[in-house]
């Protein structure tokens, strides 16, 4: 490791430890790291947006004579009217366009991926003759009972409430499995950071002595 690596990896190690001090309590080291990461990220994103958004998606097309790009540019400029009390209402048109187009794209995609594909995957043969067929019963009953839970037009009472309760149990079992899986992922992230700190310390000792 050369001097350059020692300095920059040292900054990374220092900031990692500063963030971890939060586990003890709020302290000046954590505050410093927090303010630094918030400030740097704001500046970083401004530059990223300029080079990855503004230049290739507006300036370059305009240079190539694609003048229809003026429309989103005007919508973007309209957002800036929020700084004026008198003209801030103009920005609502841009917001409405953005939300409307976003919903228009999202709704068919949601329906396709989260409803129709799931529905197709759940239409499976059921029975008691094999373990697979019995598992399929559990899947179909689990999905149906979860759907009962998310039915809002009826109170969860009586037999309906019983099925809805089975639905929430099904969801909780799913959440438990998801929790375990993600926690394992987080532990591996922690291990990676601990290994980085250990290796840096070893390299630093080698460099000094």
């Amino acid at each position, binding site marked *: 490791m050369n001097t350059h690596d020692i300095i920059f990896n040292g900054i990374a190690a220092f900031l990692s430890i500063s963030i971890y001090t939060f586990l003890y309590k709020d302290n000046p080291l954590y505050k410093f790291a927090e303010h630094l990461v918030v400030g740097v990220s704001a500046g970083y*994103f401004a530059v990223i947006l300029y080079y990855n958004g503004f230049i290739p998606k507006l300036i370059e097309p305009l240079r190539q004579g694609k003048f229809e790009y003026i429309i989103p540019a005007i919508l973007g400029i309209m957002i800036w009217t929020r700084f004026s009390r008198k003209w801030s209402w103009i920005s609502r048109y841009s917001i409405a366009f953005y939300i409307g187009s*976003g*919903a228009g794209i999202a709704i068919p995609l949601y329906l396709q991926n989260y409803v129709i594909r799931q*529905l*197709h995957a759940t239409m499976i043969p059921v029975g008691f003759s094999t373990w697979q067929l019995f598992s399929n019963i559990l899947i179909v009953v689990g999905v149906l009972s979860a759907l009962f839970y998310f039915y*809002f037009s009826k109170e*969860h009472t009586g037999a309906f409430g019983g099925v809805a309760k089975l639905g929430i149990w099904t969801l909780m079992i799913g959440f438990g499995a998801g929790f375990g899986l993600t926690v394992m992922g987080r532990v591996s992230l922690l291990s990676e950071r601990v290994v980085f700190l250990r290796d840096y310390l070893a390299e630093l000792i080698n460099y000094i002595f």
Partner: protein
Amino acid sequence: MSPICLFLFLWFDFNRINVLIILVIFFLFVLYFINQAKKGKSLFVRRIAGLDAIEEAVGRATEMGKPILYISGIEDMDNLQTVASMIILGNVAQMTATYDVPLLVPICRPFVVPVAEEAVKQGYSKAGRPDAYDKNNIRYISDEQFAYTAGVNGIMLRDRPAANLMFGSFFAESLIMAETGFSTGAIQVAGTANIHQLPFFVVACDYTVIGEELFATSAYLSKEPKLLGSLKGSDLAKFLIMIILILGALLETFGITKFSSWFFVR
């Protein structure tokens, strides 16, 4: 090729005609119920436990004289969960304005800031206290996920809000924020439709609004005919899905696959 055929060929993906048909049926249900709601017909929606929790959280903050922290997730305004979150924010703002509790709204995406400002301003106006609206309480933190998380954690630790309300689209930051909020002793109510993050909210928050309940909450609170209509429409769609599911599973069991294969999306 005739112009009409060319138009259809260019504009329609015939492999996904099933998606179009289902979408049209769904929209018809929604439009029917919106129409019913507009005519003034009362549409029953069961109360969601998370709603009582929001009121409880505002009450606790009022008693303690501490602010409420509202986190709207880390996605932009094109995400439906953020839209639902903004509707809930408007209602929370109305409650906090009524009880004179400061409402802090740290935001991750620049585009959400003006919408949140409008929602809070409207909430304060509805409560009859437009003068109490403080624009500085709606703060843009950062676009970067973990910079935003660090900033929100800082607010939780320094301003010590009495309640943390988290509604919207959350990802890996959910557990970090919920855990920090838990350590400060705040009452926490969270809701997201991101299934992979729900377990964390369930373990670290006092109340969790699960999945579609987030959209139902926004409809229930706002009492908007359009939202109530879409909620009732989706309920009817769910009922239809249940029937299709049972029918599909039974037909598959007897070896008839044509019915389920119609729902296959390429």
